[in-house]
């Protein structure tokens, strides 16, 4: 009899633990940036753009959802109430890479137009520029 009680208790306990883990999994907060993630691909911003302008479908297959680390020159920094955008573009190019940051994930005080920069973020696709979001600055 005692054995059965212990067994039932163990089953209930394991059930609760699994339940808690499922709950945590289902309602886990989305990261505000990829700061803690390792880059899957490292590439110059201009080369990333070229891959998308050459063949968008192939580039989508290669880069979508990947953490991409791009390097290039800051063309423009803009912000709204909750986000910061850094636009990486070579002066001679028509387009570039648009990097979106959560405001809490970036200190832009030392950054200015013309600076060389390395940024990693999740590639979400190509519109007028290649777009990265959840970005983080990389040293």
């Amino acid at each position: 009899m005692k054995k059965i009680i212990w067994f039932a208790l163990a089953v209930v306990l394991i059930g609760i633990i699994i339940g808690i883990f499922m709950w945590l999994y289902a309602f886990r907060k989305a990261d505000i940036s990829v700061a803690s993630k390792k880059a899957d691909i490292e590439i110059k911003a201009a080369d990333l753009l070229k891959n998308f302008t050459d063949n968008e479908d192939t580039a989508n297959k290669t880069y979508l959802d990947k953490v991409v680390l791009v390097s290039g020159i800051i063309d423009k920094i803009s912000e709204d109430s909750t986000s910061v955008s850094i636009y990486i573009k070579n002066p001679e190019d028509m387009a570039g890479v648009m990097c979106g940051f959560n405001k809490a994930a970036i200190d832009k005080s030392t950054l200015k137009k013309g600076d060389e920069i390395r940024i990693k973020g999740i590639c979400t696709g190509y519109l007028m520029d290649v777009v990265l979001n959840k970005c983080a600055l990389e040293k």
Partner: protein
Amino acid sequence: MKSKVLLVAFLAVVQLANAQKYIAKTGHVWFYSHTPMEEIEAHNRQVVSILDASTGDIVFNLLNKSFEFKVALMQEHFNENYMQSTKFPKSTFKGKITNLDKIDFKKDGTYTAEVTGDMTIHGVTKNITTIGTIEIVNGVITAKAKFKVIPKDYGIQIPQLVENKIAKEMEVTVDIPYSAN
């Protein structure tokens, strides 16, 4: 030869000057789903839009994967199960402001804009008409609109299991500040 090239260049410049095109690359579009069971909202702050003040042509393009949710799993479901964002990466609207004569882009103010055009979501295109506003403050133009999108209209299947948690109508809000180009 040289004069021809110059003429073409000159015409291109004249056209550009006439076009009065405004571009936004970090526009904000968000949607809101309300049911008694659950509140869901997702924000996309990387919306591209081009507004041609001389013709009233207005275009919005956004990447579905740029929508950010508070809960990570919701974002996964949105992209993988509902929007199929790998197959259909973009949502677009291409239309026209039909009461252009009522809007003076040179003068500060808040104008009502009637917009009609084609919305493409999940590979399905539908003609929609809605009322938005054009706000001009110190010469800076912001386009705003709020309308409903019914996922079913765009062939988006919501499984029965979560039917109570996802609204039948999504409330979509558009807020696009333009810069002159």
